[in-house]
């Protein structure tokens, strides 16, 4: 008992010393008082941004970083005054916030406090600044250098080459199921279709309308390629989300996969996997498919917003706190490799190479449309029927279109 009490006292002491530098560092961010309350996803890059925002002198800063941020950010910003003064969001989740009109145009705040924000960081919709981006993310190839060397192949550049490499690895008896992928029915599976369909050159909607159009040659080709890939995956692939796929990778069961740039740091560090796995884990450019030149992936940005239902004082405090937190002052040896930062002075680390190449190859951003979320849900609910062989590709795509149309009619997008 004595020991544990001493342990507690010791950790409290250590905690106190760890806090001291934070207090010493308290910086003047340009506004002296106000409430800042941030809600956002939970991964290292966002944790660093939130911690940096907390260093502003005089401001009351609280944060709620959780994987469930999308479920709570909208209700938390609808009250008046809003509980959260800022939501850290991405390409698709900002659409839901704009649809409910809970975020504030930032033009006046940019004019007053944000003249030094580089213009390319400003997310401008219909002439109004709605968010400030600070990092980019995308899915791209991750491969095992040693396994590809054993079968004498270069890293694949297309999905067709990836299939050939998978067959070679299986034939050589190295791995039974060398391909990984986040194919869990639902959001993940729909995302893989979105990637593949864009790679095939498909368009999701008739131009300028909410009318869906995925039941076409590109849609069928995308589904056929996904099914071909699943032949080289763990038979439980429909239950594997990004976490389970990463675990398969770290266990050394997989040699080729399309994975999020924000998750490659975990795969390449020394924790959780044998040395032969993490030392041979390499990232590459995203793959193309079907002879196309557009990579079969989507670009995502992460950025911050300011809530509409808060006082001007709190809005100014939130703006300067997050502006400071996403300025070059954020970058140091620890934070540099955590993301592909959209911040001046950022030096890409090898782990970020995949996302850099995705941008260089001119990949498309994930569609920022108010009805894209409904299509994503319809895709996630229906594609599994094709992959499990219950129905053919055309029937599945017809089901997707019908499910989307019913939902879009309910939501008032289609009359």
């Amino acid at each position, binding site marked *: 008992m004595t020991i544990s009490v001493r342990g507690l006292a010791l950790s409290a002491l250590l905690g106190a010393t760890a806090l001291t530098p934070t207090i010493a560092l308290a910086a003047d961010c340009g506004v002296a008082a106000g409430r800042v309350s941030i809600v956002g996803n939970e991964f290292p890059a966002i944790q660093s941004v939130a911690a940096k925002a907390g260093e502003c002198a005089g401001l009351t800063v609280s944060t709620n970083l959780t994987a469930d941020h*999308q*479920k709570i950010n909208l209700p938390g910003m609808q009250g008046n005054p809003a509980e959260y003064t800022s939501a850290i969001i991405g*390409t698709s*989740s900002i659409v*839901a916030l*704009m*649809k409910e*009109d809970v975020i504030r145009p930032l033009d006046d705040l940019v004019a007053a406090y944000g003249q030094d924000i580089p213009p*390319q*960081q*400003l*997310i*401008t*919709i*219909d*002439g109004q600044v709605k968010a400030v*981006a600070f990092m*980019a993310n995308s899915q791209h190839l991750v491969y095992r250098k040693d396994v590809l060397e054993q079968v004498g192949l270069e890293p694949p550049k297309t999905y067709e080459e990836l299939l050939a490499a998978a067959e070679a690895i299986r034939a050589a008896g190295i791995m*039974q199921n060398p391909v990984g992928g986040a194919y*869990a*029915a*639902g959001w993940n599976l729909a995302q893989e279709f979105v990637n593949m369909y864009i790679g095939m050159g498909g368009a999701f909607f008739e131009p*300028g309308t*909410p009318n869906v159009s995925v039941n076409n040659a590109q849609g069928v080709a995308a589904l056929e390629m996904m099914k071909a890939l699943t032949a080289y995956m763990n*038979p*439980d*692939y*429909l*239950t594997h*989300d990004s976490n389970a796929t990463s675990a398969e990778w770290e266990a050394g069961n997989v040699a080729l996969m399309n994975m999020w740039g924000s998750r490659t740091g975990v795969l390449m560090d020394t924790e959780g996997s044998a040395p032969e796995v993490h030392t041979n884990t390499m990232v590459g450019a995203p793959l193309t498919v079907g002879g196309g030149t557009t990579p079969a992936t989507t*670009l995502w*940005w992460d950025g911050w917003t300011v809530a509409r239902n808060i006082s001007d004082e709190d809005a100014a405090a939130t703006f300067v706190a997050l502006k400071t937190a996403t300025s070059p002052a954020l970058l140091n040896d620890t934070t540099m490799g955590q993301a592909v930062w*959209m911040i001046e002075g950022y030096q890409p680390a090898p782990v970020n190479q995949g996302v850099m190449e995705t*941008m260089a190859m001119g990949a498309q*951003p994930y569609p*920022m*449309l*108010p*009805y894209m979320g*409904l299509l*994503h*849900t319809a895709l996630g*609910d229906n594609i*599994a*029927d094709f992959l*499990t062989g219950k*129905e053919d590709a055309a*029937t599945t795509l017809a*089901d997707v279109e*019908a*499910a989307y*149309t*019913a*939902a879009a*009619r*309910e*939501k*008032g*997008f289609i*009359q």
Partner: protein
Amino acid sequence: MKHRTFLWFILPSATAMVLFIALPILSVLIQSVFAPHEQVVREVENCTVFGCTMTTMVDQEATRALREAEPLGRFVGFGIYTDRNHLATSEIGAQWAASTGIGDFVNRLLNLPFYGALAFTLTYTALVTPLSIAFGFVIALSVNALPRLFRGPMIFVSLLPMIVTPLVGALILFWMVDARGILGAALQAVAGDPTLSVLASTPLMWTMLIVYGVWSSAPFAFVVYYAGLQTVPQDTLESAMIDGATRWHRIRYVVLPHLLPLTTFMALIKIMDNFRVFEPIVSFNAAAHAQSLSYFIYSDLGGETRLLSSAAATSVLTILGVVVLLSPVLVRTWRSFGRGVA
């Protein structure tokens, strides 16, 4: 009891029922016949770090005016109930016309989300309800036959599946039947088929969900039956033994009739519970193979774009489903109650 006294007696519980049961159901009903306003969308220029593109956005000014004019949304009557993602009335007609026979029609029907989910929900309810009650009865009989010393620990062990949080219990089983889990790998070894996977096959996934359902709800039946067994009249049992009745005869003709009211009670509760099956589908990531009405509500509310009206309509349909399923049991209880009074 005088009417006045009776009124005061039930007033607190009646108030609570109105506040916490009737009003929410009413609000769900209202929600289900209204849908969000028609969205006014227009083309705007959208500039991000990746360049500028033309895209459509909801026109906030125009939509706000619509919302203020009609805060509930637009009235659509049963429009949500009959659309393709629910009862799909017009789609059923079209599928009937296009189908080549009864079998083909059933296949096409089950491909519609509501009917596919209903098929699983009803199968699950029809199997899990009797099986869990039967298992609970067998466990109760066995524990009751044990010497007193062992009963306490046995009751505790038998209740464990009910004590474990449903999501966690299902997750543990999910990991065990994964192709790399202990049960999944054992099954592959026994069957001699390295590609066999419980989670990849629809029939095996349904079996797994039903096994989980029985495992997690048998303890409830057990604990109710065990309590009931303590009230079985010993005189009747002893006279039956003197008359030469075997153990089976005593259970069949004395114990079972004595416990019949408990069985009815449990059937009611379990049918309601099982019809709302939800946790195992989430824990087993089983949405690709099995969906239920409750799962639809979850996915309508969990997406980036929330479908409140759709979720409300599914909730009302779930309530109606429970009422239909319970009606035979309710009618039966009503009748025997009436007979008792007469």
